[in-house]
């Protein structure tokens, strides 16, 4: 089921949560809503589910305008951040809840409900735990039960609010892969909210980056990472630093030196150069190398990361990945070369 969101505006009293958001989600797609807290990503998810009523705008499920359909009849599977499992029901009753509350004409017989719940339990790899209560499960297991419960109602779309937010790092990684597998097997259109860029990039077919109630960019993980459309996306996805530069004569100037060719459509004047740690390297003294001093060195996964300051431009502080073989110490003078970067005009 494809979903189209059109011009959704939503405010809570005086604070605006969504300022005219439109988004097309293809059938069977796994899409991430990524943004910092307060960006409106959860509100957007809840609007799609029908848990929030927008001030204006429309939500389409396929060709059907679902804007005025109450949440009970939207047929969505919603997985809450803290799972919201019914604590007084067993795992099996939790999963079967959606089927058991149907009106008698559409409700499957009790045996059929049980059979389908056990099937789902098997899908989420929790067979044998059907008589447990939520309190007797680990965080990861609860998450799986919540997903099974959402899948039980045969939803048209699966909506997950920070699905791994409350889990520790190791479990998160395992569940990520597992969710991807479930998605590939069941083929549900799936929207999930996260503030974790790694999660979004690794898991999603496409990522929608939100900021202050607006969508900044929608694209595949490669697109948003390699070709960020706005300074915000560049800052938010991956590590980055911004330097004040000048664009003149088709070149980007930093500390009085031309360092890069400027993009063709870029006007002259002040601009921002956004760099990732991989975009800079230590260099031998050369005409295009910039003299710099190492401020500090710290460990970052397999590499070491050095914080450096340009000698001719004291405001220009950024980070650089130092190869393991290279000896770098705080206080050392070392020239650097900027290999690439992304320039946005304006201050």
């Amino acid at each position, binding site marked *: 089921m494809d979903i189209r969101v059109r011009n959704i505006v939503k405010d809570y009293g005086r604070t605006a949560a969504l300022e005219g958001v439109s988004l097309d989600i293809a059938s069977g797609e796994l899409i991430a809503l990524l943004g910092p807290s307060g960006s409106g990503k959860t509100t957007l998810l809840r609007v799609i*589910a*029908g*848990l929030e009523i927008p001030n204006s705008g429309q939500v389409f499920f396929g060709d059907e305008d679902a804007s005025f359909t109450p*949440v*009970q*009849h939207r*047929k*969505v*599977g*919603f997985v*809450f951040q*803290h799972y*919201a*499992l*019914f*604590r*007084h029901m067993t795992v099996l009753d939790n999963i079967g*809840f*959606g089927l058991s*509350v*149907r009106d008698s004409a559409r409700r499957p017989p009790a045996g059929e409900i049980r059979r389908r719940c056990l099937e789902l339990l098997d899908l989420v790899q929790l067979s044998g735990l059907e008589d447990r*209560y*939520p*309190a007797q499960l680990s*965080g990861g297991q609860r998450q799986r039960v919540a997903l099974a*419960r*959402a899948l*039980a*109602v045969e939803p048209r779309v699966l909506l997950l609010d920070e699905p791994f937010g*409350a889990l520790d790092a190791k479990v998160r990684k395992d569940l990520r892969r597992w969710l991807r597998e479930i998605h590939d097997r069941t083929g549900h259109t799936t929207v999930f909210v996260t503030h974790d860029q790694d999660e979004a990039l690794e898991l999603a077919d496409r990522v929608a980056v939100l900021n202050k109630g607006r969508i900044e960019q929608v694209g595949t993980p490669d697109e948003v990472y390699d070709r960020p459309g706005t300074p915000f996306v560049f800052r938010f996805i991956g590590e980055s630093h911004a330097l004040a530069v000048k664009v003149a004569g088709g070149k980007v100037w930093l500390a009085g030196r031309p360092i890069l060719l400027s993009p063709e459509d870029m006007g002259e004047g002040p601009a921002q150069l956004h760099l990732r740690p991989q975009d800079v390297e230590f260099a031998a003294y050369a005409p295009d190398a910039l003299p710099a001093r190492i401020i500090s060195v710290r460990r970052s996964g397999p590499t070491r990361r050095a914080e450096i300051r340009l000698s001719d431009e004291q405001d220009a502080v950024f980070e650089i990945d130092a190869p393991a073989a290279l000896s770098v110490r705080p206080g050392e003078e070392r020239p650097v070369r900027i290999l690439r970067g992304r320039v946005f005009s304006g201050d």
Partner: protein
Amino acid sequence: MPDSMPAALLPPSATKPAAAPDIRARKRLRAPTEDPPLFRAAAIALAVFFLALFLVLPLAVVFIEAFGKGAAAFLEALREEDARAAVRLTLTVAAIAVPVNVVFGIAAAWCIAKFEFPGKSLLVSLIDLPFSVSPVVAGLVYVLLFGAQGLLGPTLQAYGIEVIFAVPGIVLATIFVTLPFIARELIPLMEDQGTTDEEAALSLGAGGFRTFLRITLPNIRWGLLYGVLLCNARAMGEFGAVSVVSGHIRGLTNTMPLQVEVLYNEYNATAAFAVASLLAGLALVTLALKSLLEWRYADEIAGTHRR
């Protein structure tokens, strides 16, 4: 230079620390939050003394006095027609007041805990009003409202409805006094639980009423039971407000607490204490049930607290 040699390169024996003396043995070291034994003993003794003097002793006296002239006199006093009428009336009043407060308490707690609306803090204060107003004043208010010279009294009388010096007045006064118990118990509980469970049920297709019955009510059941017990204890024991509106008509509008007072004023100590012991017995049963629930309820909280 063995001094600068890293610890990992030293032979194991060199890094092994000498057996550290148990520092607790050096001086009798206490945990930071532990008090000196003398202070502890004094505090416990003081608490026990006050409990015995102000709670256990009076309760014991009630039962001793009640059975002072033998079990036969005790039973005789309870078999008396007025005493039996008082017991019946007390149970009737509680049977009406408690369910009314259950409905009101759930509705009020639901509104306050799950929704934002203007005047919410005013509603919370209003619910607390019966706690702060003297029960006698509450009774007087009902007399002024429904009495023969009162605001609504003559109108009601024209239709043959008597409120003051009759059972309806007693019920109204009791409801007023016991109003906060259940709501107060449920508000923090429901606020803590939030609305996500309900949202989950709705998103799974359940209707509003079914969600309430199958999700909200089970989530608050222990708190609700606890509130009902407190409310019931107060409804049966209320004296002040009921005393003002009842008119003390023996066999008709005397509840158990009122009956105790009447008997006592007639120097009928045995009968007074016999009824009083019955009241105290009901209170003890309530207390036992409450403790049982708390024990059970604590289990429930520990097991199902949201993480």
